Protein backbone atom coordinates (compact mmCIF):
# COMPACT_ATOMS: atom_id res chain seq x y z
CA UNK A 1 0.00 0.00 0.00
CA UNK A 2 1.30 3.42 -0.91
CA UNK A 3 1.00 7.01 0.24
CA UNK A 4 0.47 9.80 -2.23
CA UNK A 5 0.84 13.54 -1.79
CA UNK A 6 -0.97 16.28 -3.68
CA UNK A 7 1.53 18.50 -5.45
CA UNK A 8 -0.56 21.59 -4.90
CA UNK A 9 -1.44 21.53 -1.24
CA UNK A 10 0.42 18.68 0.38
CA UNK A 11 -2.66 16.58 1.14
CA UNK A 12 -1.70 12.97 1.78
CA UNK A 13 -3.74 10.04 0.51
CA UNK A 14 -2.97 6.77 2.23
CA UNK A 15 -4.16 3.75 0.31
CA UNK A 16 -4.42 1.69 3.49
CA UNK A 17 -6.84 4.18 5.00
CA UNK A 18 -8.74 5.30 1.92
CA UNK A 19 -11.20 8.17 2.42
CA UNK A 20 -14.26 6.45 3.88
CA UNK A 21 -15.97 9.84 4.40
CA UNK A 22 -15.90 10.36 0.64
CA UNK A 23 -16.98 6.86 -0.22
CA UNK A 24 -13.46 5.64 -0.99
CA UNK A 25 -12.93 2.43 0.90
CA UNK A 26 -9.84 1.65 2.89
CA UNK A 27 -7.36 -0.16 0.67
CA UNK A 28 -8.36 1.64 -2.55
CA UNK A 29 -5.34 2.06 -4.80
CA UNK A 30 -4.64 5.50 -6.25
CA UNK A 31 -5.11 4.04 -9.72
CA UNK A 32 -8.59 2.89 -8.83
CA UNK A 33 -9.84 6.29 -7.68
CA UNK A 34 -12.21 7.76 -10.28
CA UNK A 35 -10.88 10.51 -12.54
CA UNK A 36 -13.49 12.99 -11.37
CA UNK A 37 -12.20 12.76 -7.80
CA UNK A 38 -10.85 16.04 -6.44
CA UNK A 39 -8.35 16.62 -3.67
CA UNK A 40 -10.41 17.35 -0.55
CA UNK A 41 -8.04 20.09 0.58
CA UNK A 42 -7.46 22.10 -2.58
CA UNK A 43 -10.02 20.87 -5.08
CA UNK A 44 -7.64 20.00 -7.91
CA UNK A 45 -8.81 17.06 -9.93
CA UNK A 46 -7.00 13.77 -10.25
CA UNK A 47 -6.27 14.39 -13.93
CA UNK A 48 -4.87 17.88 -13.32
CA UNK A 49 -2.24 16.99 -10.85
CA UNK A 50 -0.44 13.75 -10.47
CA UNK A 51 -0.03 12.83 -6.89
CA UNK A 52 3.57 12.01 -6.03
CA UNK A 53 4.43 8.74 -4.41
CA UNK A 54 5.94 9.54 -1.03
CA UNK A 55 5.90 6.01 0.32
CA UNK A 56 9.67 5.88 0.59
CA UNK A 57 10.22 9.15 2.35
CA UNK A 58 7.28 9.15 4.72
Amino acid at each position, binding site marked *: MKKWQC*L*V*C*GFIYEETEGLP*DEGIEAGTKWNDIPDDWACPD*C*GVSKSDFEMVDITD*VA
Partner: protein
Amino acid sequence: MLIKPTIIVGTGLAGYTLAREFRKLDKQSPITILTADDGSVYSKPILSNALAKGITANNIATSDANQMADQLNASILTKTDVTAINPQQNIIYTVNSDKTQQELQYSNLVLAVGADQIQLPLEGNASDETISVNDLADYAIFRKRIEGAKKIAIIGGGLIGCEFANDLCSSGLEVQVIERTKLPLLNLLPEAASETLHSALMQIGVEWHLLKSVTTISRNGSKFELSLSTTDSNETTVINEIDLVLSAVGLRPRTALTNACGIKANRGIVVDQYLRTNISNIYALGDCAEINGLVLPYVLPLMNSARALAKTLAKQETKVTYPAMPIVIKTPAHPVVILPPPPDLEGQWQSTNTDSGTRSLYIDKNNNMRGFALTGNATKERNALIKEIPTLLD
Protein backbone atom coordinates in the same frame (compact mmCIF):
# COMPACT_ATOMS: atom_id res chain seq x y z
CA MET B 1 0.68 42.08 -36.53
CA LEU B 2 2.14 40.44 -33.45
CA ILE B 3 -0.47 39.53 -30.88
CA LYS B 4 0.35 40.99 -27.50
CA PRO B 5 0.58 38.34 -24.81
CA THR B 6 -1.30 37.97 -21.60
CA ILE B 7 1.38 38.71 -19.01
CA ILE B 8 1.20 36.97 -15.65
CA VAL B 9 3.46 38.32 -12.92
CA GLY B 10 4.33 35.55 -10.47
CA THR B 11 4.98 31.81 -10.69
CA GLY B 12 3.50 30.78 -7.38
CA LEU B 13 0.44 28.61 -7.16
CA ALA B 14 -1.71 31.52 -8.42
CA GLY B 15 0.30 32.37 -11.53
CA TYR B 16 0.94 28.80 -12.65
CA THR B 17 -2.59 27.61 -11.91
CA LEU B 18 -4.03 30.47 -13.94
CA ALA B 19 -1.74 29.65 -16.88
CA ARG B 20 -2.63 25.98 -16.71
CA GLU B 21 -6.37 26.63 -16.52
CA PHE B 22 -6.15 29.17 -19.36
CA ARG B 23 -4.33 26.66 -21.57
CA LYS B 24 -7.18 24.20 -21.15
CA LEU B 25 -9.44 26.76 -22.83
CA ASP B 26 -7.05 28.43 -25.25
CA LYS B 27 -4.09 26.51 -26.69
CA GLN B 28 -2.66 29.31 -28.82
CA SER B 29 -2.86 32.84 -27.44
CA PRO B 30 0.56 33.89 -26.21
CA ILE B 31 1.31 33.89 -22.50
CA THR B 32 4.36 35.43 -20.87
CA ILE B 33 5.04 34.70 -17.22
CA LEU B 34 7.48 36.71 -15.15
CA THR B 35 9.01 35.67 -11.87
CA ALA B 36 11.49 37.22 -9.46
CA ASP B 37 12.78 33.75 -8.54
CA ASP B 38 13.76 30.76 -10.68
CA GLY B 39 10.23 29.70 -11.58
CA SER B 40 10.35 26.27 -9.92
CA VAL B 41 7.02 24.66 -9.16
CA TYR B 42 6.51 23.62 -5.59
CA SER B 43 3.76 23.27 -3.03
CA LYS B 44 4.06 26.12 -0.56
CA PRO B 45 1.88 24.47 2.09
CA ILE B 46 4.39 21.61 2.30
CA LEU B 47 7.12 23.93 3.56
CA SER B 48 5.77 23.88 7.11
CA ASN B 49 5.40 20.09 7.07
CA ALA B 50 8.39 18.77 5.16
CA LEU B 51 10.89 18.17 7.94
CA ALA B 52 9.05 15.46 9.86
CA LYS B 53 8.15 13.79 6.57
CA GLY B 54 11.81 13.54 5.69
CA ILE B 55 11.46 15.74 2.61
CA THR B 56 14.54 17.88 1.88
CA ALA B 57 14.54 21.37 0.39
CA ASN B 58 16.00 19.90 -2.81
CA ASN B 59 13.15 17.50 -3.49
CA ILE B 60 10.25 19.89 -2.89
CA ALA B 61 10.36 21.45 -6.37
CA THR B 62 8.68 19.23 -8.94
CA SER B 63 9.37 21.07 -12.22
CA ASP B 64 11.62 23.90 -13.30
CA ALA B 65 10.86 26.95 -15.42
CA ASN B 66 11.93 25.27 -18.69
CA GLN B 67 9.65 22.31 -18.12
CA MET B 68 6.80 24.66 -17.28
CA ALA B 69 7.41 26.78 -20.38
CA ASP B 70 7.10 23.62 -22.50
CA GLN B 71 4.10 22.31 -20.66
CA LEU B 72 2.23 25.63 -20.77
CA ASN B 73 3.41 26.73 -24.20
CA ALA B 74 4.43 29.98 -22.50
CA SER B 75 7.43 32.19 -22.35
CA ILE B 76 8.79 32.35 -18.80
CA LEU B 77 11.21 35.08 -17.77
CA THR B 78 12.95 34.15 -14.51
CA LYS B 79 14.88 36.39 -12.08
CA THR B 80 12.89 39.29 -13.45
CA ASP B 81 11.31 42.08 -11.45
CA VAL B 82 8.59 44.41 -12.65
CA THR B 83 9.65 47.97 -11.90
CA ALA B 84 6.65 49.91 -13.22
CA ILE B 85 3.39 49.63 -15.10
CA ASN B 86 2.14 52.04 -17.74
CA PRO B 87 -1.57 51.27 -17.98
CA GLN B 88 -2.22 53.94 -20.65
CA GLN B 89 0.01 52.13 -23.13
CA ASN B 90 -0.36 48.60 -21.75
CA ILE B 91 3.35 48.30 -21.03
CA ILE B 92 5.29 46.93 -18.10
CA TYR B 93 8.92 47.71 -17.39
CA THR B 94 11.17 44.97 -16.09
CA VAL B 95 14.72 44.42 -14.94
CA ASN B 96 16.40 41.05 -14.58
CA SER B 97 19.30 39.84 -12.47
CA ASP B 98 21.81 40.89 -15.16
CA LYS B 99 20.38 44.42 -14.88
CA THR B 100 18.91 44.11 -18.37
CA GLN B 101 15.86 46.34 -18.70
CA GLN B 102 12.92 45.52 -20.91
CA GLU B 103 9.60 46.99 -21.95
CA LEU B 104 6.87 44.43 -22.51
CA GLN B 105 3.47 45.06 -24.05
CA TYR B 106 0.48 43.16 -22.76
CA SER B 107 -3.07 42.52 -23.83
CA ASN B 108 -4.05 41.56 -20.30
CA LEU B 109 -1.90 41.88 -17.19
CA VAL B 110 -2.40 39.63 -14.19
CA LEU B 111 -0.71 40.45 -10.90
CA ALA B 112 -0.16 37.23 -8.98
CA VAL B 113 2.67 38.58 -6.89
CA GLY B 114 1.78 37.03 -3.53
CA ALA B 115 2.36 38.39 -0.07
CA ASP B 116 5.29 39.23 2.18
CA GLN B 117 5.83 37.92 5.67
CA ILE B 118 5.29 40.76 8.10
CA GLN B 119 8.51 41.72 9.87
CA LEU B 120 8.05 43.08 13.38
CA PRO B 121 10.13 46.07 14.42
CA LEU B 122 12.46 44.61 17.06
CA GLU B 123 15.35 45.94 19.12
CA GLY B 124 18.74 44.37 19.74
CA ASN B 125 21.93 43.59 17.85
CA ALA B 126 20.41 40.47 16.27
CA SER B 127 16.97 41.82 15.47
CA ASP B 128 17.63 41.36 11.75
CA GLU B 129 18.76 37.75 12.13
CA THR B 130 15.30 36.21 12.39
CA ILE B 131 14.30 34.02 9.50
CA SER B 132 10.92 33.85 7.74
CA VAL B 133 9.92 31.10 5.35
CA ASN B 134 7.86 32.53 2.53
CA ASP B 135 9.21 30.64 -0.46
CA LEU B 136 11.37 27.70 -1.41
CA ALA B 137 14.60 29.72 -1.38
CA ASP B 138 13.86 30.86 2.19
CA TYR B 139 13.13 27.28 3.08
CA ALA B 140 16.49 26.05 1.80
CA ILE B 141 18.20 28.65 4.01
CA PHE B 142 16.05 27.63 6.95
CA ARG B 143 16.96 23.96 6.54
CA LYS B 144 20.66 24.82 6.46
CA ARG B 145 20.32 26.97 9.57
CA ILE B 146 18.62 24.23 11.60
CA GLU B 147 21.37 21.71 10.90
CA GLY B 148 22.87 21.02 14.30
CA ALA B 149 20.41 23.39 16.00
CA LYS B 150 18.68 22.36 19.23
CA LYS B 151 16.49 25.20 20.39
CA ILE B 152 14.17 27.14 18.11
CA ALA B 153 12.03 30.14 19.02
CA ILE B 154 9.01 30.85 16.85
CA ILE B 155 7.48 34.32 16.94
CA GLY B 156 3.76 34.00 16.31
CA GLY B 157 1.36 31.18 17.21
CA GLY B 158 -0.82 31.50 14.13
CA LEU B 159 -1.35 28.98 11.35
CA ILE B 160 2.22 28.91 10.09
CA GLY B 161 3.72 29.20 13.59
CA CYS B 162 1.70 26.22 14.84
CA GLU B 163 2.52 24.11 11.78
CA PHE B 164 6.23 24.79 12.09
CA ALA B 165 6.12 24.19 15.86
CA ASN B 166 4.60 20.76 15.26
CA ASP B 167 7.00 19.93 12.44
CA LEU B 168 10.14 20.99 14.31
CA CYS B 169 9.10 19.41 17.59
CA SER B 170 8.23 16.10 15.90
CA SER B 171 11.70 16.20 14.38
CA GLY B 172 13.35 16.30 17.78
CA LEU B 173 14.00 20.03 18.19
CA GLU B 174 13.11 22.03 21.29
CA VAL B 175 10.51 24.60 20.28
CA GLN B 176 9.27 27.67 22.11
CA VAL B 177 6.45 29.73 20.64
CA ILE B 178 5.86 33.36 21.57
CA GLU B 179 2.29 34.49 20.98
CA ARG B 180 0.82 37.83 22.01
CA THR B 181 -2.74 36.58 22.52
CA LYS B 182 -3.82 34.15 25.22
CA LEU B 183 -4.05 31.09 22.96
CA PRO B 184 -2.76 30.00 19.53
CA LEU B 185 -4.69 30.78 16.34
CA LEU B 186 -7.42 32.77 18.04
CA ASN B 187 -7.89 34.85 14.87
CA LEU B 188 -9.35 31.74 13.21
CA LEU B 189 -10.41 29.37 15.97
CA PRO B 190 -12.97 29.52 18.75
CA GLU B 191 -11.47 29.23 22.20
CA ALA B 192 -12.36 25.57 22.77
CA ALA B 193 -10.58 24.47 19.59
CA SER B 194 -7.65 26.72 20.31
CA GLU B 195 -7.30 25.25 23.79
CA THR B 196 -7.13 21.66 22.56
CA LEU B 197 -4.57 22.57 19.91
CA HIS B 198 -2.57 24.40 22.55
CA SER B 199 -2.47 21.41 24.90
CA ALA B 200 -1.87 18.86 22.12
CA LEU B 201 1.19 20.79 20.96
CA MET B 202 2.31 21.18 24.58
CA GLN B 203 2.08 17.41 24.97
CA ILE B 204 4.51 16.79 22.14
CA GLY B 205 6.89 19.24 23.82
CA VAL B 206 6.13 22.72 22.48
CA GLU B 207 6.75 25.35 25.15
CA TRP B 208 4.36 28.29 24.97
CA HIS B 209 4.95 31.92 25.95
CA LEU B 210 1.41 33.23 25.69
CA LEU B 211 0.35 36.85 26.16
CA LYS B 212 3.95 37.78 25.38
CA SER B 213 5.68 39.77 22.65
CA VAL B 214 9.32 39.75 21.64
CA THR B 215 10.95 43.13 22.16
CA THR B 216 14.66 42.43 21.80
CA ILE B 217 16.84 39.83 20.11
CA SER B 218 20.53 39.84 21.03
CA ARG B 219 23.36 37.63 20.02
CA ASN B 220 25.31 35.88 22.75
CA GLY B 221 28.17 34.00 21.08
CA SER B 222 26.57 31.59 18.66
CA LYS B 223 23.20 31.74 20.46
CA PHE B 224 20.36 34.22 20.63
CA GLU B 225 18.73 35.73 23.67
CA LEU B 226 15.16 37.05 23.44
CA SER B 227 13.47 39.50 25.80
CA LEU B 228 9.73 39.17 26.00
CA SER B 229 7.31 41.73 27.35
CA THR B 230 3.99 40.69 28.82
CA THR B 231 0.67 41.97 27.56
CA ASP B 232 -1.07 43.95 30.34
CA SER B 233 1.85 43.98 32.79
CA ASN B 234 5.40 45.20 33.18
CA GLU B 235 6.86 41.77 33.61
CA THR B 236 9.68 40.77 31.27
CA THR B 237 10.95 37.28 30.53
CA VAL B 238 14.23 36.29 28.96
CA ILE B 239 14.71 33.13 26.96
CA ASN B 240 18.21 32.17 25.93
CA GLU B 241 20.44 29.58 24.28
CA ILE B 242 18.27 29.87 21.16
CA ASP B 243 19.86 28.65 17.92
CA LEU B 244 17.32 30.06 15.50
CA VAL B 245 14.45 32.54 15.61
CA LEU B 246 11.68 31.89 13.11
CA SER B 247 9.29 34.79 12.56
CA ALA B 248 5.76 33.84 11.49
CA VAL B 249 3.48 36.71 12.42
CA GLY B 250 1.37 36.91 9.29
CA LEU B 251 1.21 37.90 5.66
CA ARG B 252 0.84 41.26 3.98
CA PRO B 253 -0.30 41.33 0.34
CA ARG B 254 2.29 42.83 -2.00
CA THR B 255 0.82 46.04 -3.35
CA ALA B 256 3.98 48.08 -3.98
CA LEU B 257 3.61 48.08 -7.78
CA THR B 258 0.14 49.51 -7.71
CA ASN B 259 0.53 52.91 -6.06
CA ALA B 260 2.55 54.58 -8.78
CA CYS B 261 0.24 53.59 -11.63
CA GLY B 262 -3.13 54.23 -10.02
CA ILE B 263 -4.26 50.69 -9.26
CA LYS B 264 -6.35 50.78 -6.12
CA ALA B 265 -5.05 48.90 -3.11
CA ASN B 266 -6.45 48.57 0.34
CA ARG B 267 -5.24 45.63 2.42
CA GLY B 268 -4.60 43.88 -0.88
CA ILE B 269 -4.95 44.88 -4.53
CA VAL B 270 -8.63 45.72 -4.81
CA VAL B 271 -10.52 43.61 -7.35
CA ASP B 272 -14.13 42.75 -8.05
CA GLN B 273 -15.61 39.29 -8.46
CA TYR B 274 -14.14 39.16 -11.98
CA LEU B 275 -10.69 39.74 -10.44
CA ARG B 276 -10.59 43.14 -12.24
CA THR B 277 -8.71 46.04 -10.72
CA ASN B 278 -9.99 49.56 -11.27
CA ILE B 279 -7.81 49.76 -14.41
CA SER B 280 -8.94 47.98 -17.53
CA ASN B 281 -7.06 44.87 -18.62
CA ILE B 282 -5.31 44.59 -15.26
CA TYR B 283 -6.31 41.79 -12.88
CA ALA B 284 -5.05 40.51 -9.55
CA LEU B 285 -5.16 36.99 -8.17
CA GLY B 286 -4.10 35.00 -5.13
CA ASP B 287 -2.46 36.18 -1.93
CA CYS B 288 -1.97 39.74 -3.24
CA ALA B 289 -5.65 40.28 -4.05
CA GLU B 290 -8.54 41.63 -2.05
CA ILE B 291 -11.66 40.22 -3.69
CA ASN B 292 -14.87 42.00 -2.72
CA GLY B 293 -13.16 43.05 0.49
CA LEU B 294 -11.88 39.56 1.32
CA VAL B 295 -8.18 38.75 1.64
CA LEU B 296 -8.03 34.95 1.83
CA PRO B 297 -4.48 33.71 1.46
CA TYR B 298 -5.39 30.02 1.30
CA VAL B 299 -5.31 27.35 -1.38
CA LEU B 300 -9.02 26.93 -2.09
CA PRO B 301 -9.96 30.59 -2.69
CA LEU B 302 -6.93 30.86 -4.95
CA MET B 303 -7.87 27.79 -7.02
CA ASN B 304 -11.44 29.02 -7.43
CA SER B 305 -10.23 32.47 -8.46
CA ALA B 306 -7.70 31.09 -10.94
CA ARG B 307 -10.34 28.98 -12.67
CA ALA B 308 -12.77 31.89 -12.96
CA LEU B 309 -10.12 34.28 -14.25
CA ALA B 310 -8.87 31.73 -16.81
CA LYS B 311 -12.37 31.65 -18.28
CA THR B 312 -12.65 35.43 -18.29
CA LEU B 313 -9.31 35.74 -20.09
CA ALA B 314 -10.49 33.15 -22.60
CA LYS B 315 -13.39 35.53 -23.31
CA GLN B 316 -16.00 33.70 -21.23
CA GLU B 317 -16.61 36.33 -18.55
CA THR B 318 -16.89 34.42 -15.28
CA LYS B 319 -17.43 35.67 -11.75
CA VAL B 320 -15.48 33.90 -9.05
CA THR B 321 -17.74 32.13 -6.60
CA TYR B 322 -16.61 30.74 -3.31
CA PRO B 323 -18.15 27.52 -2.16
CA ALA B 324 -17.60 26.51 1.46
CA MET B 325 -13.82 26.47 1.65
CA PRO B 326 -12.35 24.77 4.68
CA ILE B 327 -8.85 25.62 5.84
CA VAL B 328 -6.76 22.66 6.90
CA ILE B 329 -4.19 23.29 9.58
CA LYS B 330 -1.47 20.71 9.24
CA THR B 331 -0.66 19.96 12.84
CA PRO B 332 -0.45 16.14 12.86
CA ALA B 333 -0.26 16.13 16.68
CA HIS B 334 -3.82 17.45 16.64
CA PRO B 335 -5.27 18.09 13.17
CA VAL B 336 -7.57 21.07 12.72
CA VAL B 337 -10.07 21.96 10.00
CA ILE B 338 -11.87 25.25 10.10
CA LEU B 339 -14.52 26.82 7.96
CA PRO B 340 -14.57 30.43 9.10
CA PRO B 341 -18.00 32.05 9.23
CA PRO B 342 -18.50 35.05 6.91
CA PRO B 343 -16.78 38.14 8.35
CA ASP B 344 -19.02 40.34 10.51
CA LEU B 345 -21.79 37.73 10.66
CA GLU B 346 -23.55 37.83 14.00
CA GLY B 347 -23.67 34.56 15.83
CA GLN B 348 -21.82 32.44 18.31
CA TRP B 349 -19.63 29.40 18.61
CA GLN B 350 -21.09 26.34 20.28
CA SER B 351 -18.43 23.84 21.24
CA THR B 352 -18.57 20.24 22.37
CA ASN B 353 -15.84 17.75 23.14
CA THR B 354 -15.50 14.57 21.09
CA ASP B 355 -13.43 11.44 21.89
CA SER B 356 -10.14 13.10 21.13
CA GLY B 357 -10.96 16.56 19.89
CA THR B 358 -13.55 19.30 19.71
CA ARG B 359 -16.43 20.21 17.47
CA SER B 360 -17.37 23.89 17.36
CA LEU B 361 -20.24 25.12 15.23
CA TYR B 362 -20.89 28.78 14.45
CA ILE B 363 -24.63 29.38 14.75
CA ASP B 364 -26.18 32.59 13.43
CA LYS B 365 -29.20 34.31 14.94
CA ASN B 366 -31.58 32.39 12.68
CA ASN B 367 -30.16 29.20 14.16
CA ASN B 368 -28.28 28.21 10.98
CA MET B 369 -24.79 26.78 11.08
CA ARG B 370 -22.48 29.16 9.17
CA GLY B 371 -19.04 27.87 10.05
CA PHE B 372 -17.20 25.20 11.97
CA ALA B 373 -13.94 24.32 13.64
CA LEU B 374 -13.06 20.67 14.11
CA THR B 375 -10.04 19.29 15.91
CA GLY B 376 -8.62 15.84 16.57
CA ASN B 377 -10.95 13.00 15.58
CA ALA B 378 -13.80 15.46 14.93
CA THR B 379 -12.04 16.47 11.68
CA LYS B 380 -13.63 13.38 10.12
CA GLU B 381 -17.00 15.17 10.26
CA ARG B 382 -15.83 17.82 7.83
CA ASN B 383 -17.49 16.56 4.67
CA ALA B 384 -20.82 15.91 6.34
CA LEU B 385 -20.85 19.44 7.79
CA ILE B 386 -19.76 21.21 4.61
CA LYS B 387 -22.92 20.06 2.88
CA GLU B 388 -24.99 22.06 5.36
CA ILE B 389 -23.13 25.35 4.82
CA PRO B 390 -24.21 28.03 2.32
CA THR B 391 -21.64 29.59 -0.03
CA LEU B 392 -19.54 32.54 1.05
CA LEU B 393 -19.54 34.48 -2.20
CA ASP B 394 -22.02 33.77 -4.96
